């Protein structure tokens, strides 16, 4: 210990101090009157029975189902389509219902007649050549 430190320590010891009896009594009385504050402790978590876990799980699932059901329950909005008079907007179509089948078959019939006459002529010519 150096000289300064030693002198400071010795000089501190030379400061003559004592706690008087009156101060002693005052302190004791104050301490007895004072109440120490207790530490505010967080209560220890209490273990819950498994029934609570099941109950909360079921409640959660039921709530989820209810929300899904409510969301899907709502019918889709019907689109209001204004009534349109098709007859007014679309021009009437006129169909030609008369079919002229004769026009389609006449050339074939004529061709057939011509072939038959040609055949008859050829038969007569053969008969004449052989002298029948």
């Amino acid at each position, binding site marked *: 210990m150096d000289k300064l430190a030693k002198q*400071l320590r010795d000089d501190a010891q030379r400061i003559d*101090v004592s*706690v008087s009896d009156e101060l002693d009594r005052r*302190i004791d009385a104050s*301490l007895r009157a004072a109440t120490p504050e207790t530490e505010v402790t967080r209560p220890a978590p209490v273990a819950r029975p498994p029934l609570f876990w099941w109950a909360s799980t079921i409640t959660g699932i039921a709530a989820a189902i209810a929300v899904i059901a409510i969301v899907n329950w709502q019918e889709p909005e019907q689109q209001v389509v204004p009534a349109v008079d098709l007859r007014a907007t679309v021009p009437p179509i006129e169909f030609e219902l008369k079919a002229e089948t004769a026009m389609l078959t006449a050339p074939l019939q004529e061709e057939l007649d011509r072939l038959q006459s040609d055949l008859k002529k050829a038969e007569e010519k053969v008969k004449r050549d052989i002298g029948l």
Partner: protein
Amino acid sequence: MSNERKLIAAAKAGSADAFADLVRGYRERLLRFLLTRSPSYADAEDVLQDTLIAAFRYLHSYDPRWRFSTWLYRIAIRNAAKLRGPDLVEIGDLRDEENDPLQQCIADSETDNLWLCARQLLNDEVFAAMWLRYAEDMSVNDISKSLDRSVSWTKVNLMRGRRVLERHMNSGAEKSEAYG
């Protein structure tokens, strides 16, 4: 478990007797320290009483990693600071020179007590750091905790305080040689 820890545990449970036993050895040391920081002897006694009551009431907040004396001195320093008021005037400005409590406790033959000079030469906080280091033999860490200052602040100011006092001692020695 040490005796001090047993007493702390009992006091935490509400035993005033255990707390009185616990602080019995600190009372005079605290009072001596508080005399250096109070304008009068009565003020020092009041601060000591307030300090012990506060320590008892808030003992639940005491961290056992600290030395009990360090925690006690910290409360004492805070309570003594209340005497300085919100403007934190120096204790010397509040003190009446005729009723200086420290002067009263030093015998007439020892008026060259170095702590009297230290109080005149150093500011309140540096003086407190020097007191805790050399009168109470506290470590630098404990002093920094008590004063609520950093360790580096404490080291620097202890060194400054030492230099000031050494200069004062040397000048005193030179004077006595010159007169001798």
